[in-house]
């Protein structure tokens, strides 16, 4: 399996604002890799370093130490050229938290085209890609609309379309659902899942919402600049105490099952669907009766 991202021992500290102050260490010794086509959720409290990590992966920031490979190319090499950086940026895109601050053009389709225009593609090709990208995210109807009048979820889908149109292999979502209402969140999550399952786009989804993390193939939990856990949603959410300690949460289903387990029931914790959770509880209650 091809690794699209490979990070080993990455560290980063924000320089101190004033002289004499200690620099703010955001990441220390972070190592992980992401396979092509994987859907990885990154969880972590505010200030855990997850957004810094996203900026490093998009080559907006340069790590202080460690190595970072994008698409097999070492980006931390001393003689990495601007061209190499641009080439890597073509592969890895980012969708940000605030939908308003990433849309450049007033009209939806022109914003989607922005990235392709930067790549210098011929106009007919851009047209085709923009139309198909808008269709993928279900925004064709809004192609000629003004971006600022759209809902939050729609704006994020426009931003996603911009990344698809550039044929990105990997998209990093930096808390892209944090400012949305439940309907908008659902829209965006459906789009993300579709991208991953149908288009084979590698997804790194940074979020605070535990139920979004349960949709991923793999969950990385960050705390104080380090990776605390790295595993499937089942593995990660089976350890609620550690997550609570890291200022995070678990899905309500897991919390309920955990309470049962504490009371001596023999139950699994890694169930996120209410119906399956109910079945598990019923089974455990039944077992206890016998």
């Amino acid at each position: 399996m091809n690794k699209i991202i490979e990070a080993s021992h990455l560290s980063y500290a924000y320089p101190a604002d004033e002289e004499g102050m200690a620099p703010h260490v955001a990441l220390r010794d972070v190592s992980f890799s992401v396979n092509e086509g994987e859907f990885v959720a990154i969880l972590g409290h505010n200030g855990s370093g997850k957004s810094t990590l996203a900026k490093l992966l998009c080559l907006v920031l340069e790590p202080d130490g460690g190595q970072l490979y994008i698409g097999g190319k070492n980006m931390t090499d001393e003689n990495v050229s601007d061209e190499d950086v641009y080439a890597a940026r073509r592969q890895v895109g980012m969708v940000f938290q605030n939908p308003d601050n990433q849309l450049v053009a007033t009209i939806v389709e022109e914003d989607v085209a922005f990235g392709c225009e930067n790549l210098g593609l011929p106009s007919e090709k851009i047209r085709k890609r923009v139309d198909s990208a808008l269709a993928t995210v279900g925004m064709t109807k809004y192609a000629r609309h003004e971006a600022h009048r759209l809902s939050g979820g729609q704006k994020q889908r426009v931003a996603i379309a911009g990344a698809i149109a550039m044929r990105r292999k990997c998209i990093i979502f930096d808390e892209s659902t944090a400012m949305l209402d439940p309907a908008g969140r659902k829209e965006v999550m459906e789009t993300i899942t579709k991208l991953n399952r149908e288009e084979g786009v590698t997804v790194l989804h940074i979020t605070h919402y535990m139920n979004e993390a349960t949709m991923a193939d793999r969950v990385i939990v960050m705390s104080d600049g380090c990776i605390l856990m790295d595993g499937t949603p089942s593995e990660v959410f089976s350890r609620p105490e550690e997550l609570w300690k890291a200022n995070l949460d678990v899905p309500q289903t897991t919390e309920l099952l955990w309470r049962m387990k504490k009371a001596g029931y023999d139950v699994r914790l890694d169930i996120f669907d209410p119906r399956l959770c109910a079945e598990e509880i019923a089974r455990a209650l039944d077992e206890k009766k016998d």
Partner: protein
Amino acid sequence: MAEIVIKDLTYVYGKGTPYEMKALDNVTVTFKDNMITGLIGHTGSGKSTLVQMLNGLLRPDSGEVFLDGKNIWDEPKEISKVRFKVGLVMQYPEYQLFDETVRRDIAFGPGNMGMKPDEIEKAVEEAARFAGLKPHLLEKSPFDLSGGQKRRAALAGVIAMHPEVLVLDEPAAGLDPGARREILQRIRDYQRESGKSVIIVSHSMEDMAMYCDRVVVMANGAPVIEGTPAEVFSRAEELYSVGLDVPEVTKVARALRDCGVDIGLDIYTVKFAASRLPGVIEQ
């Protein structure tokens, strides 16, 4: 003592333009004293408009808003006094901070009220305590605080005005679970200690279930369901029909009944659900 009674309130945005939209349609609702009322509704249900009616930021097209039995628009010139009585914390309030220090920023509202310097001092310290801001933070620039601290500083800026009613629009939006729990817990503690009336607007069913005493559900510009969280969340079908959801644990309770285990449909928090299961006690 402060009860807000709303009677036959109607409000239309952009009257006479192509964008005309009825945001509130003949709303009659009461926000009771000494409790936390949750106002739920999807985007566009009119809840944000209703919130701006409570302290007179918007003036109704028709209908009345009564604060302690007095129509707030009886004397339009005195509307700023209503704004001191009904303190509103807007969405993402950290973007309203402006002063050099947190202390001075919190003092902005009390200063506008014409409080005396020593009163202001007292109000600021007390509000900071409620919001959980440690004293040394008061001397810092508000722009040097963390996201959660900024949010709480903005909250303190409104609490410091000693409002009779505290209204919060999405107080926990965008915060991580830890910061979310902290700010909601602080709001609850504030209500319990002060005995005042608090209104929280939110999308999060889970948060509403955990922290509210009473819930009002809005849809299409008017309230559709009212009651205690248990009453409201037991009516899942009606909530689904207006585009809302119920907490996950409520769904589990419903599914459990289908499995032949009836723990009631009025389940709305995990603790509550656990307490209904044999042998699982509240920890």
